[in-house]
């Protein structure tokens, strides 16, 4: 697992997400962010340019 995110960097994430946290929530979620970061690292791996997401967009037909 990657290192714990700094308080400053975590505050920036909170601000970007538009959230307002109490100090206890801040501390609890900063720890939980490590779990999310570990999963993020699993999902992000080298892929070819042609790797398609599982979603498709279907335009309206006449």
């Amino acid at each position, binding site marked *: 697992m990657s290192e714990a995110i700094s308080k400053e*960097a975590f505050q920036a*994430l*909170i*601000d*970007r997400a538009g959230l307002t946290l*109490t100090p206890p929530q801040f501390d609890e979620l900063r720890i939980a962010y490590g779990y999310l970061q570990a999963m993020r690292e699993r999902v992000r791996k080298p892929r070819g340019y042609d790797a398609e997401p599982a*979603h*498709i967009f279907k335009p309206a037909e006449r």
Partner: protein
Amino acid sequence: MSAESTPQSPITIDMKLAEYGLKAGPETLESLKGAVADLQTAAKNICKPRSYLEEPVHALRLWKK
């Protein structure tokens, strides 16, 4: 939220870039200011009240017919 909540701070462009593992020199940062403001406006425009039941336009197709 109470007054004890963490204050929202203005997020600088370099902090935003750092979040994605990106770095830029002072000139680039300056040139991005206008674009970032436009992006924020666009993001605000698309984030509006919607019914819980509204579907995204893309659909998952794991299986062929």
